[in-house]
């Protein structure tokens, strides 16, 4: 097969192929189905950014203060942090074990307040879309 034959054959390949008569209708049916599906709600990064930044700052502050309470002659930083984490875990365990109505309500409020900066933008976006 000579190069010009290859050229001709490849150039001619599929030149007579056309869409079937009902192709456009099938595509439009699929397009209309697609158009009916509401687009996914994008995560509102702009609105959530302050909340996420605040949460990160609190986290960094918590770890920093845990490290600084270990004192001058303290062992290396990572073990100290782990030690404090263990203490906190133990305290949480103790408090869970001795939960009364007051501590349970405090924990609920703390968890709810922590979720506000992240969930609020999502709720706002949904309500805007709904209205």
């Amino acid at each position, binding site marked *: 097969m000579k190069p010009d034959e290859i050229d001709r054959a*490849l150039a001619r390949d599929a030149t007579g*192929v056309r869409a079937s008569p009902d192709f456009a209708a099938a595509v439009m049916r699929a397009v209309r189905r697609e158009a009916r599906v509401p687009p996914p709600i994008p995560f509102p990064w702009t609105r959530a950014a302050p909340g996420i930044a605040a949460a990160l700052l609190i986290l960094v502050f918590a770890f920093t203060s845990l490290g600084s309470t270990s004192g001058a002659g303290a062992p290396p930083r990572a073990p100290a942090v782990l030690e404090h984490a263990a203490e906190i875990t133990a305290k949480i365990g103790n408090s869970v074990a001795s939960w009364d109505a007051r501590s349970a309500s405090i924990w609920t409020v703390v968890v709810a307040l922590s979720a506000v900066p992240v969930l609020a933008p999502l709720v706002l976006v949904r309500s805007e879309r709904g209205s």
Partner: protein
Amino acid sequence: MTVDDGVAAVDRVLRGDVAAFAQIVERWQDPLVALAYRFCHDRSRAEDMAQEAFLRAFRALHQWRREAAFSTWLFAVATNVYRAELRRQGAPLVSIDEIADPADTLDVAAEHEDSDRRAALRRALHALPTKYRDALVLFYFHDMDVERAAASLGVPSGTVKARLSRGRELLRRKLVTMLGSSEGPLEEVEGEA
């Protein structure tokens, strides 16, 4: 439909007139199905692939930057869909039954005489590494226009030229193997690059 009409249809779709997309489908259905057929050599699969390309274009219509012609953008979208589809489902098996070229106006005897060679050519083409196969498919689909092939592939035209040159050489070698010594030595390919 003129180029302006195409833009007008896109604008209408972007304003929420879904029915206006029918104009785009009517205008581009044959080229997109033909391009899909070049990739898969199966009519029904080609229509499925073309439909997916139109759907993808519909979803991404707002991403058309209007720096290039709408057709350039549409072919690039379709090319990506077709290449992904072939990667997902594998290269087509081009059988001896797949020899009839829909464009043929030759008589039946001549067609049969030529059939083995065309089948071998298609098999050789689909046996190429994808980057060379895609360059060859798009180059011939776009009437041997390197710039348009490059735009569809989203690579510089120099890259397409290099792939065409290498792809043709590989194709030539594969054809020698497939068609055997009865074809005689092939002439040197005069590369486009």
